[in-house]
Every structure is written in C-alpha cells, then in structure tokens.
C-alpha cells in the first residue's frame, strides 16, 4: 500500500536544477555540490543554479550542461571522476577489490572443503529436521533450566 502510494506522482520527466547541480562541485570552499551548498548567499552556487535553470529552460541536457562547466572551470568542477585515463581506477578499483576478495574466499573454500572433517561429524549430522535443530536445542535447554 505504502509502496504503491508514495512515489507515483513524483517521478520527474526532465532534468531538474537539483539533478544537474548535483553533478557540479561548489567552489566556495564548502566542499559540497552546487545543489547542496549550504551558504544561503553563496557567490558561486546561487548564480550557477540560476544559469543552470536558464539552460534547462533552453532545452539543454544534463550532459551538455556538465560539459560546458567542465570546459569553463576544469575537471575539479565535476562532482564525480570522469571515466577516462587515470580516473578509471576510481571506478574500477572497488569492484576489482571485491572480485579479488571473492576469488580469495572461493580459493579458501576449496581448500577447506578438501580438508578432513573432524572426527564424529558427518554431513548428515547437521541436516535439519522438522524444526530447526538449533531452535530445538535451545528450547530443550530452556526446559531443562526451568525444571
């Protein structure tokens, strides 16, 4: 009900000032995006948001506006690294690290799997029955305690 009711009416069709200015970093020193700069009379973000509004009303896309500002101020204006050259490392490293970690886990699993099981522990011993064996064990402990 909630899932159905909440967002339907709010989906936007064309870029808003906020969506575009999220892609740009404010240069006033606040360290936030042009959309989020919290200085009410910021000399950078306030006029820029006005310019962006005008560009959107002239039909320019988000990408065109970002390209314009990158040309004007350099790469530091963009709030995310580009996807070229050295910057590609920014985007790929986290996933590469996770893949590496996943590979390491898979390798460890293979080694552990091939290792001998401790005595008295057969795979069938852990097979759960009607109730979760863990739950059953805990309940039995509780009953013992209460006796």
């Amino acid at each position, binding site marked *: 009900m909630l899932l159905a009711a909440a967002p339907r009416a709010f989906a936007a069709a064309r870029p808003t000032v906020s969506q575009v200015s999220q892609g740009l970093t404010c240069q006033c020193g606040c360290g936030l995006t042009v959309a989020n700069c919290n200085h009410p009379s910021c000399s950078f973000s306030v006029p820029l948001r006005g310019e962006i509004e005008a560009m959107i009303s002239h039909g320019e896309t988000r990408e065109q506006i970002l390209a314009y500002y990158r040309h004007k101020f350099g790469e530091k204006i963009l709030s995310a690294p580009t996807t070229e050259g050295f910057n590609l490392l920014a985007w790929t490293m986290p996933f590469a690290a*996770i893949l590496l970690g996943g590979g390491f886990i898979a390798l460890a699993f293979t080694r552990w799997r091939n290792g001998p099981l401790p005595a008295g522990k057969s795979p069938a011993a852990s097979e759960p029955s009607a109730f979760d064996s863990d739950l059953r064990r805990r309940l039995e402990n509780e009953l013992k305690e209460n006796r």
Partner: protein
Amino acid sequence: MPDLGKLCLLVALILAVYSIFANVYGARRGRGDFILSGRHALWAMCAMVTIAVIALWNGLLRSDFTLEYVASYSSTTLPTVYKFTSLWGGQQGSLLFWTWLLSIFTSIAAFQNRRRNPDTAPYALAVMAGVAIFFLFMLNFITRPFDLISPVPIEGSDLNPLLQNYWMAIHPPSLYTGYVSSTIPFAFGAAALITAKLDDSWIRSTRRWAIFSWFFLTLGNMFGARWAYEVLGWGGYWAWDPVENAAFMPWLVMTAYLHSVMIQERKDMLKVWNLALIGLAFSLTLFGTFITRSGVISSVHSFTQSGLGPYFLAFLIAIVTCYTALLIWRSPDLRSPAEFESYLSREAAFLFNNLVLVGIAFAVFWGTIFPVLSEWVRGVKITVGPPFFNRVNGPLALALIFLMGVGPLIAWRRTTADRLLRSFAAPVILGVSAGLVAILSGIHEWYAATGFSLAAFVLGTIIVEFRRGVSARRHMVSEPPARALVNLVAKNNRRYGGYIIHIGVLAAFVGIIGSSFFKVEVKKSVAIGESFTIGSFSLKYLGLDQHENAHLEQATARLAMMHDGREVTVINPAKLFYKRQQQPATAVAIRSTPFADLYVVLAGLDDNGNRATFEVFLTPLVFWLWAGGLLMAMGTVVVMWPNVRERAAIAVAIGRSRAEEYAGEAASGGGR
C-alpha cells in the same frame, strides 16, 4: 581552575605511562601487586581527566575569556546548553572529551577484568593506556585546552552557528563514544596476540563492547544525518562528505566484525580475519579523526581542521604497523582446523556478507582518498562526490540486502535444495509481488523497483524466522502466540534482537530509496496571500514575524499548508542571523508523515518581507530512514540485554581457556 586543569592532564599522562609499566611488568613477572597498582593508576588517570573536563566546563559556563578556548568557542550570549556542548565544539575541547571517554571506558574495562582474564587483561589495559598516552601527550604539549589569552577579550567569538543545534549537541558525543569504545575490543585483540591466548575468549569478553561501539556508531551516523537534514537546508541528509565517510567506514567494518565473530564462536574459524577486522575498525576511527582534523581533504566539517593531521597520521601508522607485525608474528598459531561443506551454508553467507561490507568500506575509503591520489599522480585536482559513491555503492547495497535475507534462513554447515525451497518460497513470493506492485505503480527506475522487492523479500525471511520460532515454542512448551513471541525474543535476545536490527536496516533502506529517487523540489517567490503547489500540497504565504535578541536576529515566515483544499497546519521556516559571528543560517520547517516529508526553506526575503522566496522539497518515505535508525537502536538494546545463558557461556569459555593453559603447563612440567 585553568592551572588545576593543566596539572591534572600532566598527572594523567604520568599515570598512564606508569600504568603501562606496572601492567606489563606485573603480567610478565606474575606480580599481582603491580597489576593492581597499574589498574589503580588507570582509575586515578580517569579521575584526573574528569577534573580537567570539569575545569573546562567551568570556564565555558562562567564565560572565562582568559581561556583561549572559551574565547574562541563561546560567548556571553550563547545559550547555556551550547556553552555546555562547546566542550566538543572546538579542537582542544573535543580531544579532551575524547580522552575523557577513553579514560572512563578504560576504567570500566579495568573494573570488569579485575578477576577475569588475568593473563590478557594487563596487556589489554596497557594497550588502552598507550592510546590514552597519545591523546594526553597531544593535550599537554600540542593542542592545550587550558592555554590563556592576552589581552583578555571582553567578549568571545561564539560557537559556530551550524553547531548551535540540538542534534549537534548529541551527534559528536554519540560518534565519539562509538569511536572510543572500539578501543576496548581492539586492545583485547592485541592482548590476545601478545599473550598467544588466541581462542575466542577475547571475543566473548568484549562482545558487549563491540556491540556498544556499533550502537553508538549507528546513533552517531543517524544523528549526524538528521543534523544535516535539519540544519544544512538542502533537503538531503547525506552528502558523502569525507568526514561523513570517515564515520561510516568504522560502522561498516564493525558490522562485518559482529557477523564474522559468530563464525569463530561457532566453528573456531576465521581467527586472523576477526583480529584483522577489529584492528581495521579501530584504525579507521583514527583515520576518521585524521581526516577530520588534518584538512588534507576539503570537507563541510572544516571547523575542526587544524595542524594536528601529521600527529594523527604518525599514530595511525604506528598502530597499523605494530598490529600487523603482531598478526604476522602470531599467524602460525592462528591456523585452525577449518571445516566447510557447502556454499549453501550460513557461514558462506556470512563470509560473503563480510566481503560486501568490507568492499563498501573500501569503496568509500578509495573515493575519499582518490582526490589526493589524483593530485599526486596527475597533478590535477578532482572531486569525488555523491554521484560516484551512489553509483559504486548502490549495487553493493543491493547485494548486502539480499545476503541479509539469505543468511539467517540457511543452516550452518549446509542446506539441502529442498529445505532451501521450503524456507524461501514465501519470502520470494512476497519479494516478487512487491517488485510487481512497484512497477505497476509507475516506478520505472530498475534500482528502486529491485530495492523495494529485495526489502520485501528480506522482511519475508524475517517474518518466517519469527513464525518458525513462535510455532516451535507453541509446539514444545504450549505457549499462546503472544507469550511465545515475547519469550522467543527474551530468551534468544541475541538472535532475535539481530532480526529487529535487520528490520531497522530495511526501513532505513526503503527511506533512502524513496528519498533518493522520488524527491521533487519547487522554488517559488510569492507575495503575502499568494499560494503555490507541490505534489498534492499547496502552501499559502501568510506573513513574516521578526524577532531579535542579544544573540541573533530571526525572520520567521508563516505558511499555511493545505492538502485537498483543507488547511493541515501552519509551518514556520526561518532565516537566522548570528550577530557575534556575523553569519546567516536557515531554520527549515519540516512536516513529516510516513508517506512523505514536506521540507520548506525560507530562501530569500524582498520588499520588507512582503515577498518571500521558498525552496520546498517533497521527499517520499524519508520518515522510514529515521524510524529504521530507531529500530536499529531498539534491536541493539535487545541484543545487549543481560542474558544468563550468555554469561554462563563466557564463564565456560574463560574456564576452558584456563583449563587448557593448566593442562599445557602440566604437560610441560611446570609453571612460569
């Protein structure tokens, strides 16, 4: 009082140094009197730091501007509550506050372990004293809270207006508590490595501390987000600012740790990994402090920047190097008979959950430091902001939510396909149905639809778990459903408290999706009596009230909020001007419901207030982010609730550890 504060900090430093010597000497030579003396020294250190804190509070509350700190971060007109919170509003005070928390936690740990863990506790206390020495050294010689100023100013500079907010009054203490309390499990981990007592007794002994740390890290992050939401006036709560990231990373790693220790407790595996995780979590708290105070990366938290970065970096490097060396040194003793049967097992799910959590922490770390790397390598300054973090962490968050649903429902060791089907049928149906409902409701963003679907799936798995537990109790102890539910949670608080935390995470996740994908904003300039609309709401500008006192000027707009032609309420966004710091600020008005928040900022005033500009955000579901935080906190309280069986398990673990030790000594033919 300033002299007393200075003296106390110096004595505290001497006591911390003595405590290291007494604890280590006592432990090595088996001298209980030295160990006792080392413990007493830590309690005395805590008393000294407490007196220093009282001395600084006294200066702040009395507006004693002979103290440079008071003159810089307070004023006579500052409301008393913020004079009190100014203790952590500036560099020196916040370090003193940090040290105070550390000394309190160290004292509690010393008290808890006065009879427990006789072999490891002295070393753990020595490690805590070592950390305290760093902070006390900083307070005594580098950034002194009791420095005097000359000439004495008539009035103070006041506290940064952004910090004059109730959320900011509780956000730093919560976060600091989370940061500092991670020292205790870290110190016991280090002590386990030093003494080669590498079973799980150090984990069991510090489990509550780890959860306590996680609890306050959760609260700290939530309070910080709420502060940003209410104070910064941009309609959002998280900007992936480096300092926010610095608080988020230890939370992620601590979450991974709390899950992976279950594997060690259960299967005696992953000893190295758990020790590495707690070392990483503690190091990340120091990294966070380094980031906050160094100014290496520009941040919205610039008010905490100083020249302390190199000291924190040196300390961080020293900690990481020593701890890694210890881990490598002990690695031959950390091998355990590993047992693994299937990818379809809870241990496998936990391991992948760890991979994703640490992966997200790495992505956040990488994005935070990448601007520095880019400048070093290319000489080009770049920014890594929200679009990067959202795009990289978005898919990882989905994977994490999925694993959150899978983990609890599959058994340890292995699960058969048949059982898997039985356990997951209902949750999968619920998840798919929710996804379909979302799509049919007009949600076309794949991420949002998938996220809602996964959240419903995980909620389904949690419901199945509760249902199964209640049904087992009804079957075996013949309890009525409500009582069975209460007893289920009370008697298995660790497990079911964990599920309550998971429900909180789901609620927060739904809130994040709703607020990230479906927020709409309108900016309008209206004259008194005019209205404008946003979504199904309309807002009518009724007029402006102006107030002034010695501290600030305030212009408050009155807006009638209408829904379906009916007036719901009057809301009051305001513009503030802090006189002492000559800084403007905004006070937003928020009308919150479970469906959406209406968030109104008074952006500008013209024509003596006859015309005003409003920036309004309609943010669906954001309510659930805060509700989720509350649920996570409640779940953690349930998890931490004293449990007789848990205490017995700790006693058994410690007893086993001692028995093994005596057996080893007997076999080798003697004592020390």
